[in-house]
């Protein structure tokens, strides 16, 4: 079996080396060539057993229904701004309002540019990102580049006050949406980012994020998807974490017809840290496939992953968690834990840890458990007067909210509240399906 890590290594493309990319057009040409040479990933790849490449390639079979206002609402309510917050609204693939671009979110030296602009104005930065991105040789990243009109580049300097979260709501009713975000935190910068996607029925959505955290930078990242049973979406996220920097992500997911998040974190500098936590709460028939990869390349790097998945009838939750510890690294710590709660016996939770440890000086733990609702917990709550469905709802809520308990305390209150609210919404969506 070929290691998935090997398969991420760049392969030579005739006449097109990423080192020659000098502009946005070069990047697209390179991606187009790559797509000619490489086939989409197939099922022989362990990480593509539950969702398939075809799920994310247009055209998707579509029904004629176009309205699902309930779903639409769910996507938008989560980022309803409070006046004190900084909002960046990306609408229809464009920045909603040029005035808002200056007014909200982008003060304190934060810059927002399109990728085309960034290649012209700061090619050195763009080149650095392209060459170091841990996801640069993935099929769907090339696909994204080749099909993208343009993307966004956000650079956050150290001066920006970190107690003000930035909120991004991606919103477009188009049938196929291709998005790209490059986020750079300069040395010592701190950002709390709440990022959500609005759902439209029968949509196919692609989002690629490249996140670069320079020395001592910290990003708390709340990732909120929008539940919709009639859409497919794929997120591919690459994160480079430099010396002393920290990336802390918590995803709250309801999945979709087919939903997948690949997230690849390079802990490239010593003392770099990463947290990849997720609460996956899937209503009936939803699918969510989470594939993480954390590569410890430097000494004293630490990672922690905690994934809690609950599934209603015929839902499928997949978690493939890969940890790579490169040779000659010292003092690496890596923890991975996954817990599954089958709300219905006819649902499916798959958890697959994969460890590639090439160093001796490592503390690595991993554990996975899957079960139904604990009958002793249920009886305890019933013996206090709660009926069976109330008791189940409380146990589900507890299971979901636990991921929030261990999320780094340094995250701002706004971010924590956004996550907690989202968790409550998804628990409420699931409760009718939990009550037998």
């Amino acid at each position, binding site marked *: 079996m070929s290691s998935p890590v090997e398969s991420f290594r760049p392969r030579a493309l005739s006449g097109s080396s990423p080192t020659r990319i000098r502009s946005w057009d070069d990047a697209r040409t390179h991606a187009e060539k790559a797509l000619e040479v490489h086939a989409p990933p197939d099922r022989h790849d362990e990480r593509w057993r539950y969702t398939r490449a075809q799920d994310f390639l247009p055209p998707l079979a579509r029904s004629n229904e176009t309205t699902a206002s309930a779903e639409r609402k769910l996507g938008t309510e989560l980022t309803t701004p409070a006046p004190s917050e900084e909002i960046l609204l990306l609408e229809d693939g464009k920045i909603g309002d040029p005035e808002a671009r200056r007014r909200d979110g982008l003060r304190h030296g934060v810059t927002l540019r399109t990728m085309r602009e960034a290649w012209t104005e700061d090619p050195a930065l763009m080149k650095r990102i392209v060459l170091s991105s841990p996801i640069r040789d993935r099929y769907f990243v090339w696909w994204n580049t080749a099909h993208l009109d343009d993307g966004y580049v956000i650079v956050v300097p150290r001066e920006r006050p970190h107690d003000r979260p930035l909120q991004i709501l991606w919103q477009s009713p188009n049938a196929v949406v291709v998005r790209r975000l490059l986020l750079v935190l300069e040395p010592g910068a701190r950002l709390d980012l709440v990022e959500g996607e609005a759902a439209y029925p029968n949509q196919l959505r692609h989002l690629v994020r490249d996140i670069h955290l320079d020395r001592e930078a910290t990003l708390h990242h709340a990732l909120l998807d929008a539940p919709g049973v009639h859409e497919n979406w794929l997120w591919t996220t690459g994160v480079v974490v430099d010396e002393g920097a920290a990336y802390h992500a918590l995803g709250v997911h309801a999945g979709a017809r087919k939903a997948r998040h690949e997230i690849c974190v390079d802990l490239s500098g010593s003392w770099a840290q990463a947290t990849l936590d997720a609460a996956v709460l899937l209503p009936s028939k939803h699918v969510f496939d989470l594939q993480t990869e954390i590569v410890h390349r430097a000494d004293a790097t630490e990672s922690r992953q905690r994934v809690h998945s609950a599934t209603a009838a015929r839902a499928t939750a997949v978690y493939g968690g890969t940890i790579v510890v490169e040779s000659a690294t010292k003092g690496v710590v890596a923890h991975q834990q996954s817990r599954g709660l089958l709300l219905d016996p006819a649902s499916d939770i798959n958890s697959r840890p994969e460890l590639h440890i090439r160093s001796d000086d490592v503390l690595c733990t991993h554990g996975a458990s899957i079960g139904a609702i604990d009958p002793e917990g249920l009886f*305890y709550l019933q*013996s206090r*007067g709660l*009926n069976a469905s109330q008791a189940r709802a409380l146990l589900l809520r*507890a299971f979901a909210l636990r991921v929030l308990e261990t999320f780094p305390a340094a995250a701002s209150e706004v971010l924590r509240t956004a996550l907690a609210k989202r968790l409550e919404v998804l628990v409420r969506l699931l409760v009718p399906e939990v009550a037998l």
Partner: protein
Amino acid sequence: MNNEQPLLDVRNLWIKAQDQFILNGLDLRIGLGEVHAIMGPNGSGKSTLVQSLAGHPGYTIEKGEISFDGEDLLTLTPEERARRGLFLAFQYPVEIAGLGNGYFLKAAVNAVREARGQTPYDAVEFLKVFRELAPLVGLGQDFLERGVNAGFSGGEKKRNEILQMLLLEPRLTLLDETDSGLDVDALKLVARGVNATRSKDRSIVLVTHYQRLLDYIDPDVVHILIKGRIVRSGTRELAREIEREGYEPLLTAMA
């Protein structure tokens, strides 16, 4: 014991768990306002009795009748029993990490209040009641934020059980070894909580291994449960006798 209809009436109860009889024809009557102690060696079926009374689904009632306040208890779900005023303080309270204690307590007390036709507490009212009751068992407000029993010490778990009893105002309280594993100070706090609920329309069953608890809570009747049956009933003096001589003489007599 008074002659009126007892609050709890257990007749000829036979209970099985995993194909084994644990209770073998047990009889027990608890009158209104009475405090009973049930003592017995480990494994004699004390927890099985009280868990079954609360409706634990893991036990099969093979034979027998249980009436609670004149109603057939065996037809009721665990929550219906709780709503009618039956409360079990667990020997091993269940840990539910992630569920805030305050959230849980409020949900429980309101479920019971609504069933009784009382208006549910809002957040402010609940907090007021909590502040009145929590000090009785030595618990502070920080305790509302913690997960239900998660990471609690043995003593904290037992005090949490008593606090729930105080909040739910049951008519029949079953305390399953609430005294075990407690130091003297914690024991006094628990006893204070229990004594605070003693009244002429509330009954209490103390399941205990030692007579130590009875120094603080004075029972009207003491029963000895051995091998799934009540083998002797008496006054406090019976508990003292057990304390002096152990269960050996009783077990020998049964053999």
